[in-house]
């Protein structure tokens, strides 16, 4: 009797041990599978980058190799007329000029407003005011870009025209113009400047502020002469990332900036940006493999490279301030 029970007990122990070993190896295998799956998802982001670069490169090379295209003309030409006229010109500079005009107006709107708002939120505002202000800025960030396009076309442009009519007796701004689009893009990127700069200011150590106050500084001295320089790389990063967004912004400029590619720095004129040209091509059933279609890939390549360089600079600056203070 006791021998049987002892035998049963040992076999139970053995079974249990087997069970444990089996489950442990199963656990290890499961762990291996999970690690592989998760690592695979991480590879997708690399695949996306490789996909973008290879597609753009392939089509851009196909574009350059077309008999009617010359690389020097594309890179240095100042006439962009792919759809009009007997002779087509593909010089990228008018599109770059339009893009930068809109982005500069956007930066001139967003950077002063955003920086001052950031200083106010970080240094002056009480916790309660901050709790009200932050969601409002987040709402601005959450508004779809097509809504800003509507706003630029149907509110900002008439307002600018009305103001010029009142001041100078002529509307000056045309129905589509770079100024209104730029202001709308500026409102759109304001939250990026404000919240990233505020983060940077918040991570400046308290001791720096206390030191300045102890020397008799006013709040203005502390925020402008101590906190802002200390947070400078973060602030610069916010500006770079915001301008990256402005350059890549599509729906606002497609609605409000017009469709005439020419070299101008006058915000009252209509301009065509790189993104707006792509919209024009992809909306207007251009044949899948014609010159116009291929040219939009070449423009996309330039756009991609410009935004990539700016965003790399922005991210390097961000890493720098994180290294210093965190």
């Amino acid at each position: 009797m006791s021998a049987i029970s002892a035998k049963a007990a040992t076999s139970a122990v053995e079974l249990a041990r087997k069970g444990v070993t089996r489950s442990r190896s199963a656990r290890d295998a499961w762990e291996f599978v999970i690690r592989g799956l998760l690592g695979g998802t991480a590879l997708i982001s690399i695949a996306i980058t490789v996909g973008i670069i290879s597609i753009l490169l392939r089509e851009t090379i196909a574009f350059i190799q077309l008999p009617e295209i010359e690389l020097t003309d594309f890179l240095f030409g100042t006439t962009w007329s792919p759809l009009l006229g007997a002779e087509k010109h593909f010089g990228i500079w008018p599109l770059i000029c339009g893009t930068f005009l809109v982005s500069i107006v956007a930066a001139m709107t967003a950077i002063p407003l955003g920086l001052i708002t950031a200083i106010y939120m970080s240094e002056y505002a009480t916790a309660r005011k901050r709790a009200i202000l932050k969601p409002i800025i987040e709402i601005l960030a959450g508004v779809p870009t097509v809504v800003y396009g509507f706003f630029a076309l149907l509110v900002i442009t008439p307002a600018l025209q009305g103001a010029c009519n009142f001041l100078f007796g002529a509307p000056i701004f045309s129905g589509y113009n770079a100024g209104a689009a730029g202001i709308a893009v500026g409102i759109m990127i304001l939250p990026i400047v404000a919240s990233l700069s505020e983060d940077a200011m918040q991570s400046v150590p308290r001791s720096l502020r206390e030191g300045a106050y102890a020397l008799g500084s006013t709040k203005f001295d502390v925020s402008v002469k101590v906190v802002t320089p200390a947070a400078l790389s973060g602030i610069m990063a916010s500006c770079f990332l915001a301008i990256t967004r402005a350059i890549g912004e599509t729906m606002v400029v497609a609605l409000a900036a017009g469709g005439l590619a020419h070299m101008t720095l006058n915000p009252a004129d209509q301009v065509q940006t790189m993104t707006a040209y792509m919209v024009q091509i992809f909306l207007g059933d251009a044949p899948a493999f014609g010159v116009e279609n291929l040219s939009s890939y070449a423009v996309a390549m330039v756009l991609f490279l410009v935004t990539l360089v700016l965003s790399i600079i922005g991210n390097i600056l961000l890493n720098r301030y994180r290294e210093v203070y965190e």
Partner: protein
Amino acid sequence: MRAISIRTRRILKNRAFLALCLFSTSATILILALLIASIMVQGSHFLFNSDALSAVFAHGELSQLTKIIRWEFLTNFASRFPEKAGIYAAVIGSLWVCAICALLALPLGIGTAIYLEEFAPKNRWTALVDFNIRNLAGVPSIVYGILGLTAFTRMFGLFGTDKNSALSFGPDNAWWHIQLPFGQGLLAGGLTLMLVVLPIVIISSREALRAVPSSLRQASLAIGATPWQTASKITLPAAIPSILTGAILAMSRAMGEAAPLLVLGIPVFIANTPDNLNDNFTVLPFQIFNWAGRPQESFHQLAASAIVVLLIALICFNGVAVYLRQKLRNPLA
């Protein structure tokens, strides 16, 4: 005397700067108010029934209450005639495409975040992946549209054209009917939007995971849990509220995105809702873009009405995010 004057000057400077701060902050708020007001004014024409409005508010006829809203704006298809136009197809298309985008982007994005935060060794390779994701977040959405056009809509031309498909699965009338290439179908749209929001989901999920105290992880590993057990049972539950918040914000981005879908070539006018994953669709932001770009005043009003609907949907989304954050708030995180 001189010392005092310098002091007063500095104090005055401080006051002036505070005034500048208040001015620019209120300018920001004013802009938002102006934006909302101008859209409400323009949008009210097609959203509300003026007859019913006056009946209810001027004459107190409460029976007219449900007729205040012009429901046909929500239930009609797009039309050449502003009075008959509605946003039904666009709303259904937006919901479909966002659902597909969420089903694809959330597992992939959260999986990547878990891998990078919990599993990946800290080496150059991981740093490269991290750097790559940060820069992908800055790529213009229209460029993702080009990737989507080539990889999903045309599938590199490997399977013939959309109209003359080489491969298809499932009966034509089943909702899961799929053919290759995806053409301008829902699947192509959802996948393209997935490309756009994936970096955002990854970055916000990583930040959520990083905020979980590492003492929790160490305790779990110390009692013999494997890395995956630690991640799935300890870290992830603690980070879920913030991950969900980030996910919902990413989905509202997807809902407002028009540029990448425009590149795919989705139609503007469509008189049916999608039946299967390959069916054509349109989305609300694209409908708004189209209406706002027309010269006639009444189409601008239609665009404004559609914007009101879109903004209400986004506010509901964000409300859910705030609610979830409150409800799931975990003392550990």
